[in-house]
């Protein structure tokens, strides 16, 4: 059983944000028809590729973003194809788009297809200056503030970072777009009418930091040019260890006492007051702690020390790499990774979703479609 059975979504999106939005909806069981121009979505041309060889069916990025979808090729410049696209829209429940200059304007669509839910994702949202709307994922995460403040404690002479992978800001925008589309489709079930949904990728970035930035907007904390303006202070950070990296988070006396026990009470801990994390957490002390802890950490194994730490009430965790995840017992228990076979990429492990729905679990039933695979069927 799937949550969105019976819903039909047309995807004109060609960027990661819109394609991820479509994927979230498709993985819940809606019929998502991806309409591609001749030559296919630009994400088909982004790597990495199977065996390093580019090709429309060889992109791992495209394969990830387009599970459970159908692909139809239509040329908007061709009047016959354009009519077919409009016929698709007439029977669809929603349209997901992510073009700054869309094929169809919101006004046009709401007049001609009043029942359609139309979602348009753009870097800065409708009404933003046209030159802003060229922004790429890197520009979005920088405009939205997360790059400037990542990692925590970045020194002033090191560049802001793009985040994890190439598309972090796109994933975030895709979540909110999918949330809005599904909410609006609930309204459509009841009212029979559609809505236009305007998503700003940068505003999604800003919303994700509400409890830090809003206190600055409200004058309760000073905004600043500091790269550390979002930081919390304290010793929490990543450390190199024998088999990779580990991350420790400590804020209380209980954490500290647990850590002392975990390390076997080395002599240097006597230089620290027992309640230093709560009441005497100076920059010097944090630096001194890190110096000592780093020496201890470098001989530790991340998974072992994490399990031992949890027993002692210390939040110390492995900084897992991609290769660590599929074998992790909790990921396995929850079935987070699903094996799926793609005709060109072969069998591979696909991440599913962080939510397990008891009645309608997310299931990957089909690999990303070949370009135009559903031409005959869907149009």
């Amino acid at each position: 059983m799937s949550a969105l059975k019976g819903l039909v979504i047309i995807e004109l999106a060609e960027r990661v944000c819109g394609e991820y939005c479509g994927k979230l909806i498709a993985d819940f069981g809606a019929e998502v028809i991806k309409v591609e121009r001749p030559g296919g979505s630009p994400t088909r041309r982004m790597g990495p590729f199977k065996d390093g060889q580019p090709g429309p069916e060889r992109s791992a990025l495209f394969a990830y973003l387009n599970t459970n979808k159908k692909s139809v090729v239509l040329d908007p410049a061709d009047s016959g194809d354009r009519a077919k696209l409009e016929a698709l829209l007439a029977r669809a429940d929603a349209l997901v788009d992510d073009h700054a200059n869309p094929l169809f304007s919101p006004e046009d669509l709401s007049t001609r297809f009043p029942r359609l839910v139309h979602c348009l994702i753009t870097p800065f949202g409708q009404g933003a200056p046209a030159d802003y709307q060229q922004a790429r994922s890197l520009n979005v995460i920088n405009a939205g503030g997360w790059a400037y403040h990542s990692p925590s404690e970045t020194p002033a002479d090191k560049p802001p970072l793009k985040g994890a992978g190439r598309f972090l800001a796109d994933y975030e925008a895709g979540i909110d777009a999918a949330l809005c589309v599904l909410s609006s489709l609930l309204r459509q079930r009841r009212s029979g009418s559609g809505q236009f949904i305007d998503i700003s990728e940068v505003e999604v970035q800003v919303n994700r930091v509400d409890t830090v930035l809003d206190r600055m907007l409200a004058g309760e904390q000073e905004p600043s040019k500091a790269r550390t303006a979002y930081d919390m202070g304290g010793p929490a950070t990543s450390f190199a260890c024998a088999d990779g990296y580990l991350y420790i988070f400590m804020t209380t006396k209980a954490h500290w006492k647990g850590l002392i026990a975990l390390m076997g009470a080395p002599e240097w801990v006597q230089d620290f007051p027992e309640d230093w994390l709560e009441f005497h957490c100076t920059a010097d002390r944090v630096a001194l702690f890190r110096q000592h802890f780093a020496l201890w950490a470098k001989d530790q194994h991340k998974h072992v020390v994490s399990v031992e730490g949890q027993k002692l009430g210390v939040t110390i965790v492995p900084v897992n790499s991609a290769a660590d995840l599929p074998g992790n017992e909790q990921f396995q228990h929850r079935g987070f990774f699903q094996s799926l076979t793609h005709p060109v990429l072969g069998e591979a492990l696909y991440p599913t979703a962080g939510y397990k729905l008891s009645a309608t679990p997310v299931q990957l039933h089909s690999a990303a479609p070949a370009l135009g695979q559903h031409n005959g069927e869907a149009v």
Partner: protein
Amino acid sequence: MPLPPRGGPLAGIRVLAFTKVWAGPYAGKYLAHLGAEVIKVESMTNLDEMRAYGGVDINAAPYFLSINQEVLSVQVNMKTPEGLELVKKMVATSDVVIDNIRQGAMERSGLDYDSLKAIKPDIIQLSLKMWGTEGPLAYQTGYAPCFAALAGLNYLVGHEGEVPRGMNIRYGDSTAGAYAALAIVAALHHRESTGEGQFIDLSAVEAMTSLIGDSLLAWSVTGEVPQADGNYHAEMCPHGAYPCADGEWLSIAVDLEDEWAVLCGELGLETAPGHATLAGRQADRHAIDAAIAARTATRDASQLGEALRAASVPAFRSQSSIDLCSDDLMWSRGGYRMVTDHRTGSRPIIGPPWRMTPDEAQIERGAPLLGEHNDYVYGELLGLPPGDIADLKTRKVID
């Protein structure tokens, strides 16, 4: 008194929230900002820590005010049997129950899914925990940066050649909350078409892992373990943030050769013949980054960004908190907006990142006072007469 209608796509959906700190409240906020009626269940005996941070007045705590706009608050002491019975009556009138409280706490209060289902057969319940509600590691606890470390996300974030330090320490809770809201609305569709509710078990770690899905599949297909790679992008070069005057930074993402030529022209860089192709530039990217940085260092980030964008090169200033607070576009589009505030009259908030036409939900009320909606919940929803409500208050069942 019934509450005035606010509109929005989730109007008519009632959510009961046992949420604390950030991830759970963020899910509640998003549902409220889409028009749902979100009732936060609170008590003096079991306060959301966010009402305590940064001050002594639990009704004016900045952290709490920054998240919980358009959320309602009802007080009930769940440590009393009578209080628990009242909570169950609230469940009977709700569509959704959310919690992100300590592992096992809902079960101990008799608020596990099977019990809720007995009260309201089509209830949708979502629990949000670090590792989900059950399984071999479900006993473990942690904070948002721990989710991001466990998830594989932080491993990918760091300056090249350094320990991967990850996203800023604040990253993670809000995203997990957004995924929670999404799963709930998907479940509402299933209920709408079949009449069936369900239990949603959300792992905050897996939520973070979802954000690097393409990197993980790429590993499975190619066998190459992705690493923290600074601002490297396989398809674009140059691609990074470059230092400008006054400690500012400008992000520049160059795709095709024409963009590279424009960038060189603007910065007065020699265009080496070998740099005409992406492969050529990638091979020399550290030298290219250094050459760009040497020329951007004296430029004003905003002006240079504007000049590059005018010539169709995607560039934007890397924004600090003070840049963000003074961002006119955020104000003019409603990305920032004002809501009511009990103490000061009004407060700026971060509005939702969506606009809807027509029928966008109204967002006008700031975060609730503790128990602000006691009379609405007990009187209007549960139908208790005023005398009974007063008695419950006296006996500190409503506390």
